[in-house]
């Protein structure tokens, strides 16, 4: 186990964390501002991945596909919010869970009808293929570095949007008291739709970028959705900073666990057992981490304070 291998895994963890952050940011805003638990967020990720794959295959241009994905996923998100989710804001969490669970079944089946049950595989776009030497002796795929860069950019823009702009001020205000801000003349339903569309767009972006890394298939959204829940629980519901911290932690722990747990256990156990136990433990590691955080801080690492 060399230091170079560790560095590579650190970058892998960061890249995975960035994907999680793109999902978690939208979800945590919807949680924090609308008080809404949206299981169908994973479906938006899946829709993004499929649209990107289709446009990419039709036109051959990844950039065009990416642009189409951003627009389409935002539109799908806005449509879903207007048609189905809007009435659920005032309901309890149980209703929201069930209705969005129904939406997942619908989206999965619709995807199966349109694109078929087989997984799609995407090539890395030509401009981002190949790898770069980050330090002498370590080559790292350029595409994954690009994902990390996009994640950093999104995190910074979100920070700027929420803290520095007028719209961000309204978002923060509506999170702490939606009646007052409505009375002050802000169109709260429109604001909610925009925030939901923004979240959907980020989920679609994550899906589009995931295409060349993992396969595009029905049900891909659910796996990442549950990891995103773990991220949000660790970071604190409604907190974008918490989502950033949580995703990086979960990305690191999961990647490191998978890469090094079997080998480290091999120091004490025989190789076959170490591999089996290591793989099992690695797949459980983030959940155990989440449980530990909850025992220590039941409302997450960076909770939002102003929530009536």
């Amino acid at each position: 186990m060399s230091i170079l291998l560790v560095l590579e895994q650190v970058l892998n963890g960061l890249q995975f964390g960035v994907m999680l952050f793109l999902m978690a940011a939208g979800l945590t805003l919807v949680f924090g501002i609308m008080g809404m638990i949206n299981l169908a967020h994973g479906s938006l990720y899946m829709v993004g991945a499929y649209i990107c794959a289709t446009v990419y295959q039709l036109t051959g241009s990844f950039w065009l596909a990416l642009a189409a994905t951003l627009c389409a996923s935002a539109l799908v998100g806005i449509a879903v919010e207007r048609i189905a989710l809007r009435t659920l804001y005032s309901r309890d969490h149980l209703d929201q869970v069930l209705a969005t669970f129904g939406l997942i079944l619908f989206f999965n089946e619709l995807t199966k009808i349109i694109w078929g049950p087989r997984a799609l595989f995407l090539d890395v776009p030509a401009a981002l293929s190949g790898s770069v030497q980050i330090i002498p002796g370590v080559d790292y795929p350029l595409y994954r570095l690009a994902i990390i860069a996009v994640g950093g950019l999104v995190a910074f823009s979100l920070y700027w949007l929420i803290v520095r702009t007028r719209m961000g001020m309204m978002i923060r205000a509506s999170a702490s008291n939606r009646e007052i801000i409505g009375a002050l003349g802000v169109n709260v339903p429109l604001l909610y739709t925009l925030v939901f569309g923004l979240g959907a767009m980020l989920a679609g972006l994550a899906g589009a970028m995931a295409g060349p890394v993992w396969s595009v298939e029905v049900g891909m959204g659910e796996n990442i959705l549950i990891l995103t829940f773990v991220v949000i629980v660790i970071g604190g519901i409604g907190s974008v900073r918490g989502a950033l911290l949580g995703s990086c932690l979960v990305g690191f722990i999961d990647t490191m666990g998978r890469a090094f747990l079997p080998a480290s256990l091999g120091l004490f156990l025989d190789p076959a057992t170490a591999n089996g136990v290591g793989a099992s433990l690695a797949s459980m590691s983030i959940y155990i981490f989440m449980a530990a955080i909850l025992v220590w801080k039941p409302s997450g690492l960076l909770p939002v304070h102003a929530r009536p």
Partner: protein
Amino acid sequence: MSDASRTTAVSRAPAEGKAGRLETGWRAALLTCVAAALLVLPPAAEALDEAFLIGLFTRIFIFALAAVSLDLILGFGGMVSFGHSAYFGAGAYVVGILSFHAAGGEAPAWPFSLPWMESAVAAWPLAVAAAALLALLVGAVSLRTSGMYFIMITLAFAQMLYYFFVSLEVYGGDDGLSIAGKNNLPGLDLENEASFYYLCLLILVVFLLIGRRLVHSRFGMVLQGCKENEQRMLALGFPVYRYKLAAFVMAGAVAGLAGALMANYMGFVSPGLMHWTVSGEIMVMVILGGMGTLAGPVIGAFVLLLLEEILSAYMEHWMIVLGPVMVLVVLFARRGIWGWFQRGDPDG
């Protein structure tokens, strides 16, 4: 929580008078009809050459048992646990693993090499105990939180168990384990479909009776009190956390029993039993039938599984119908099917 759902059976009781007696008579008649129909179903199905009905209804009973156990915490306790498949799957895996070792797979170590392993008398209580222990661990952590956190955490723990079994190559990993035969129960041949049907029906009825006692007991009242207003129960001096945890463990234990029955029914266990969509399905059964009642989840299990059976016979993509139906049920039929029945009563 909407106002409609607050009007549970408890608060409706004082309104009973003449109408109450009518309602009781009507309900008794309905119950007798259903019971008679279910009792004659196996011989009738065999006579009509539709033996698959026995299996279908056995499956319905098993899921109904799981749904009632979830309703105990969801409908009566107000705990939205989205990880009920974990206890269901854990119970199934206990049966699967025991029978795997009994069949001589992989040099059985000491605790796994005993002759009782294929006996239902030993395997089922063990399945219940394992599921209860799991529920104790998960509940102890999750019940420290509430609301959205609770939903997500129970979901995450169930998914953790799912991934654990997916990566557990010793017991089949992703492919699961085949079970050579059903467990032995002295005096009853479980390999006989009809016997197994009656056994599942009996277990469901017994649990419904126990559940009825439980819901109307002091324990059940405290639980429902926690759902209505936890702060008030705390102020009254009830150790709310302990009551909720006890209910959580009980629900997990019963789900474990349902899982053990499911393993026997399918002759196969796989991580798929713990997948989060199974949790979702069980939850939908509870809501569809009417949560906060004991009959509701049973009706929900009947309707959902029959609907699945019928829809899937006619169309390949039946989920595309089921999904929107679920959204509509949530939006417009909060009290579930049993709720409609009760509203349709001639209550003056």
